[in-house]
Structure formats: structure tokens, C-alpha cells
């Protein structure tokens, strides 16, 4: 039976890639392990190997094709005695076999994240345009969050020699998630520093360099690994300014992917927004869009305080409009009203926004007009913007992926209750991840994360809509 060669996933979050090159042609004999083709994503280039021996019967996806979905059939291998005419009979079987595996991430994305667009879509463009910090008529450039982060670092490194980036695989490998791509070539090994895999040590080293007046950007491959470094982040970076009576602080940015990616299990799927937001002496930023990622990272690098900059692997590849400005810097500590509305307020941030955006689209079809606030900064928190909105709508739902106890949402709920109790027309609902370590199984992971349905139900509940 002909064997389908499928587009492989190169990482837990990859959804599509480019088939850059075929190394075998139709009719070639192939053995198991032979390299058939090269595929490329924005993160890496990888080889596709034959999984069985036979003859390359048909190339389904020609070289140079972009946006090839993971699990799409890219070629067919024929076993001995088969001919091209046999191709086709195998397809249904292959699809059926692949389905259970493919389903989970796909379904999760379909309501968890806006689909990765080949070109930016209209609703996305509206987000940045509504930002008052961008002058009317500014040209918008479709940019991935990944590129936006890199551009922010590069611009700040060009402007200030004291800024440097250090972390695991940031230099020669071009970044484990390709955020630092190209920086080594431009700035050299003095300013783009590959570290050993020793988070505690290099976080402390970075803080020491900051205390001496440099402006380090410390990349954690993921914030899950930063738990090894949390003592230096909290005890040294956050507290030194206070303990020294204002004499010296630590102008440093700790950044990297935070929260769940896709099926990477309990130890690699944790959101630290509420953890770090508990600490006086830290600023905590968690952008959703590429424009915010760029403008806020530039602000974080310039900030004289330690800033925790929480990114998200699933958002890295997503494209948003970023204003083309010489120096686009956003204020830390200011929320952004993603959409105005009058019936209820949703407050979210980071990847939580993807659930909220989907939900308000559905809710608007039901005639419920939601105001959606993207918090952007968790600490200091722009509570006035939230309170103003609640005064208008009287109803509040918060959405985040982190654990439910002592979440950012419960903090918002407490403070809104204290400061705007008389304006509330319904109990606040806080939507968060479930109170469990992240499971691996696709279906369980989906259950552990928030979903659009929960957000819709919550808004219906606070607006007393059946």
C-alpha cells in the first residue's frame, strides 16, 4: 500500500511551514532514513526523512510551497510492485490514522488562538489602530510577535551600548524560539552572550551587571526554568533599590515565553503573571499583540527598574500590524481598550486575549456589547481603566490561563469590589486555568485551559442573559 509522507511538526506549536526543497525526485529509490526534503518555519529548517523504503511515487507539494499545514500529505512512497495509479487509495486510511493526534492542537488553536494568518486579517489591524499612542495615518507593517520582539531589542541595542542580551542559545543558535535571530551578526558576541544552562547563576550575574550600571536583557528559554533563578530575581533584582535606600537598583529585563505552549506537560506549562505581580520592586508586562510586544519591550529595556516580560510561544508566530515609527515606545502600566462596549467588561492579557476576542465576536452576534480591556501590564496595574469601564458596564469577567487561586483575576476582583462595589450589578467572574498541573493528553490539556465557551457563558451570566 502506498505510504503517505506527511508534513511534520517541528515544534509543539508549529501549525504550518514552507516546503523549501526536494532532495529526491519522483521515481527515485529511497531507503528508510534518506533525506527527502527540507522544510522551513520561521524558527528552523529541518529535514524530512523517509520512514520506509520504496520508490518516491509522487510529490504532492512542490518545492517552494509556503504555508503547508502540518499533517498535509507532501509525497507518496510506493512499495515494490506498486505504481502511481495506486496512489489515492491510501489517503482515507492515512487521514483516519492521523486524526486523533492532529485533532487536539488544531481544535485548541481554533478557539484558543486566532488562526495563524498568511496575511494579516482585518480585525487584527483594528487593534493597533485604536491605540491612542499611535498618530493618525501612521503606516502599519504586518509583523509577527517574534519579529517585533527582535526589532525592539535591536533598536534599543543600537541606541545604547549598555544594553546587551544574554541567555541560553541566544547567539549562535539564533534563539531557541528564534527571538534573537540576527542579533549576533549585528552586535557581536560581546553583546549577544550565549550562557551555560545555569539560570540561577546567569540571572544573578545579570543582576550584578545591572547593579554596576549595564542594561542586561536576560532571556529565559522559558519562564518555567526561571524558577531556578527566582531567588535572584526577587531577592536581588527587586529588593536592592529599597534595601540600599535608593542608591542602586537593577535596570534589567527578564524575558521569555511564559505559560502553556501545546502539550509540553506540567513542568513546561505554567503562567507566572500572578507570581511575579505579587512582588514590590518588579514591573510585570505581558503583551498580546506584536505592536504591544515591541513598544513595551522597548520601554522595559529603558526602564530603570527590573521588568519581568512575559511572552507566549503560541503568540510568537502570529502577525499583527505594527506602526512604522522611528521610536515606537508604549508606556508600562497602561491598559489598552481593545474594543469599547456597554453591556459588560472583560479584562484579559497576553494569550488570554485570544479567548476573549473570540468570545466577544460571538457575544456581539447575540446582541451583547462587551468592552474588552487588554491589561498589557500586570504590575503596576492600570486599575483606573478597569474601574472606569466597570462604572459604565456594571459587570466584569476576567480571563487568563494561570492557576485560579490568587490569580490576576482574583486580585482585580478584590480591588474592583473594594473600589467600585456600588457599581457592580453582578458578582465578578474570574476565568482561569483549572486548579491542576497541566496534563499532557490532548483532551485533558484542552480541559485544563480556559475556553471560549466559558468566557461566553460567564458574560451571559453576569449580564443575566439566558
Amino acid at each position, binding site marked *: 500500500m502506498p505510504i503517505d509522507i506527511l508534513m511534520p511538526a517541528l515544534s509543539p506549536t508549529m501549525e504550518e511551514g514552507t516546503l523549501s526543497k526536494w532532495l529526491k525526485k519522483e521515481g527515485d529509490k529511497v531507503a528508510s532514513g534518506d533525506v527527502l526534503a527540507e522544510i522551513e518555519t520561521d524558527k528552523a529548517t529541518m529535514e524530512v526523512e523517509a520512514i520506509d523504503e520504496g520508490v518516491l511515487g509522487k510529490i504532492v507539494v512542490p518545492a517552494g510551497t509556503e504555508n503547508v499545514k502540518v499533517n498535509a500529505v507532501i509525497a507518496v512512497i510506493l512499495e515494490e510492485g506498486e505504481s502511481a495509479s495506486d496512489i489515492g487509495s491510501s489517503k482515507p486510511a492515512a487521514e483516519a490514522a492521523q486524526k486523533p493526534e492532529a485533532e487536539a492542537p488544531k481544535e485548541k488553536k481554533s478557539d484558543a488562538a486566532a488562526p495563524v494568518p498568511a496575511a494579516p486579517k482585518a480585525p487584527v489591524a483594528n487593534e493597533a489602530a485604536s491605540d491612542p499612542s499611535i498618530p493618525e495615518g501612521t503606516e502599519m507593517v504586518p509583523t509577527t510577535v517574534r519579529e517585533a520582539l527582535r526589532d525592539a531589542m535591536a533598536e534599543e541595542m543600537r541606541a545604547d551600548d549598555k544594553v*546587551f542580551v544574554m541567555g541560553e542559545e541566544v547567539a549562535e543558535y539564533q534563539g531557541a524560539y528564534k527571538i534573537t535571530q540576527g542579533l549576533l551578526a549585528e552586535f557581536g558576541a*560581546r553583546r549577544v552572550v550565549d*550562557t*551555560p544552562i*545555569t539560570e*540561577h*547563576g*546567569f*540571572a*544573578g*550575574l*545579570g*543582576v*550584578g*551587571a*545591572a*547593579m*554596576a*550600571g*549595564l542594561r542586561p536583557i536576560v532571556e529565559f528559554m522559558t519562564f518555567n526554568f526561571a524558577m531556578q533563578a527566582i*531567588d*535572584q530575581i526577587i*531577592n*536581588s533584582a527587586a529588593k*536592592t*533599590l*529599597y*534595601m*540600599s*535606600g*535608593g*542608591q*542602586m*537598583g537593577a535596570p534589567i529585563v527578564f524575558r521569555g515565553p511564559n505559560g502553556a505552549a501545546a502539550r509540553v506537560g506540567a513542568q513546561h506549562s505554567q503562567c507566572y503573571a500572578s507570581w511575579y505581580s505579587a512582588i*514590590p*520592586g518588579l*514591573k510585570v508586562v505581558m503583551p498580546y499583540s506584536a505592536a504591544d510586544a515591541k513598544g513595551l519591550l522597548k520601554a522595559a529595556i529603558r526602564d*530603570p*527598574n527590573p521588568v519581568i516580560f512575559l511572552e507566549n510561544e503560541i503568540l510568537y508566530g502570529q502577525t499583527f500590524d505594527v506602526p512604522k515609527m522611528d521610536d515606537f515606545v508604549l508606556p508600562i502600566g497602561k491598559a489598552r481598550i481593545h474594543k469599547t462596549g456597554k453591556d459588560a467588561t472583560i479584562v484579559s492579557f497576553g494569550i488570554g486575549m485570544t479567548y476573549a476576542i473570540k468570545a466577544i465576536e460571538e457575544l456581539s452576534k447575540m446582541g451583547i456589547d462587551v468592552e474588552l480591556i487588554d491589561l498589557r501590564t500586570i504590575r503596576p496595574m492600570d486599575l483606573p481603566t478597569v474601574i472606569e469601564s466597570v462604572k459604565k458596564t456594571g459587570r466584569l469577567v476576567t480571563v487568563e490561563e494561570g492557576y485560579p487561586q490568587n490569580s490576576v483575576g482574583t486580585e482585580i476582583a478584590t480591588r474592583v469590589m473594594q473600589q467600585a462595589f456600588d457599581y457592580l450589578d453582578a458578582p465578578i467572574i474570574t476565568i482561569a486555568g483549572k486548579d491542576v498541573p497541566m496534563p499532557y493528553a490532548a483532551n485533558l490539556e484542552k480541559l485544563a485551559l480556559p475556553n471560549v465557551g466559558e468566557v461566553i457563558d460567564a458574560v451571559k451570566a453576569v449580564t443575566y442573559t439566558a
Partner: protein
Amino acid sequence: MAPRKSSGAAARKPAAAKKSGLAGGITDFDKADEIKAYGEMLMIRRFEEKAGQLYGMGFIGGFCHLYIGQEAVVVGMQMALKDGDQVITGYRDHGHMLACGMEARGVMAELTGRRSGYSHGKGGSMHMFSKEKNFYGGHGIVGGQVSLGTGLAFANKYRGNDNVSLAYFGDGAANQGQVYESFNMAALWKLPVVYIIENNRYAMGTSTARSSAQSNFSLRGNSFGIPGHQVDGMDVRAVHAAAVEAVAHCRSGKGPIILEMLTYRYRGHSMSDPAKYRSKDEVQKMRSEHDPIEQVKARILELKHASEDDLKAIDKKVRDVVADAADFAQADKEPDASELYTDILL
């Protein structure tokens, strides 16, 4: 040169010292050096004695770790530094601050938690800093300052200056994981940092013999290719000789170096420690046979650098400075309540 003759559980055999390459060198101090070392060590001694008294009287709260017995280490090291070199240490830090040239009044007022303290009363015994004197604290988490001090050295190298950072830590901190993470990076990147392990034999109440598989701490950099020397930390001239060599090593771009200072604290780990884990004899023996200040004093008198009366005059001057600092620190006001919310963010 056996560093000491004590026969306690943690006593080192001279052979072990030889094996590690005990630096052995002694700087031939001239009269001015001897007098300077004497005065500075005495200042630390008297300051700490006063701090102990004020603690007993309730003027100093919380944790207070006295440096008495170890004075030769910071004084000898500091005499080898130049402008711009940085110092960072753990929580037994009063001696380091005074050696760096920080004012006794400001340090004592911090101990009493008053507004004129170096951190305006917000740091306390374990957390004082002086940007002006290049003193970077004052850190309360065992071993934390080792990574930070490595970062200070990183900044020197990044800027291309020839300054050196001194990262002090104890025999207890020497077993912390991040110390070795820092060693690795410092050796890898040839960072100009002198790691000074003040081996006073007890990590709180646990002797090095009971806590450390390799209690010759000068060897701890071996697997990173970091050279190390054991130094008689009770002899300020030996400390100085090792310091000169170590600092020159760093300044010339050869990377980090380790100095294990064989020293001893006379007091308990902190004020609440009755030090039951060692014998009174052991302490007495160190005091009577190896006291760093008495050693200098004896030489000064023997070589007639100064008379008994001259030394008494120095002692009087030191006592006056300390008494003034103590008076100041008791009379100074507590920080204004508004200080609670300052210096959290810039």
C-alpha cells in the same frame, strides 16, 4: 607555615595546605602599612564590640553577624585595591563596609535602623550599600552575592576597564550550587573576579568537616581551571601578598582566582548563637596565639615603629570614632513614615 595550631575537629594539617599551594608569601609591610593595618583592624574590632553591646541593649534588632576575629582578611584585601574596584559580600558585612571607607556613623545608624543609616534604615545589618565606595552589599541569601559579584566583573570586562571585583563568601556558601554556576561562567569568559572564601570553619554551627566533602576550599575551582590558594587569613601581610597577586592576575586578563582565607570568628554565628559546637579552649587558643591585631601590635612594638603610648593614642582615637558613631546612631531619628513607600521603583 601552619596557619594555626588548634586541634579542633576542623583543624587543618599543614600537609593539606602545602598540597593546595598555600600562597605563603608575606608582604614586607613598612611602618606606614603596619600602622594603617593596625588602625583599620582595630576600628572594625571596636566597632563590632560596640555593635554587640548595642544589640544587647536593644538598640539593634534582627540579625547581627559580627566580624570579630576576621579583620585581617578585609583589611589586607582592601590595601591591594585601586579606585573603581568593587566589593560585594554576604551578611557578615560590617567589616567590609568599614574597610571600604564607609563612615562608622552611617553604618551604625543603619544597624539601629535610623534615617541617617546608609540605607535610611531600610536595609539593616545585612543590607548596606555605597555606590560612592563601590560597595555592592550586604546580601542575606547565602551564596547570592557570588553570582552578583561575577556580574560586577562582567560589567568591568564589558566596559573594557581593568577594574576587579572582590566577591567574598564563607565556607558555608561555598557549597551552594550557584557558586559553581558562577565559577563556570567566570572561567569561561575570563571575568576579573577574586573569589574570597572566608573559611572561619563553621557554617553557622556546622564545621567544615561535617559539611564539606572537600574542605580545602582553594581547590574548589579545579574543575573550572580556576587557580586557588590557601592563605593565612589571620596575618594581614599574608592576606595582602595574596591579594596583590590575585588582583594582578585578574587585571591582566587571566580570569578569576580563588583565595581561601583561613580565618576564625570569635563570636557566635549571630547574636543568638551560644556557639556550643566548639570548645572554649579552641576559641581561646585562636585569640591568644593568632589574633590578627595582636600580631601587628607585637611587630610594631618589636620593630619600634611606634611606642605603647602611640598605640594607645590610636586606640583612643578609634574608640572615640566608635563612641561617636554609637551616640549618633542612638540619637538619630527613625526614618519618616513616608519612607515606607520610597525607593521601591525608580
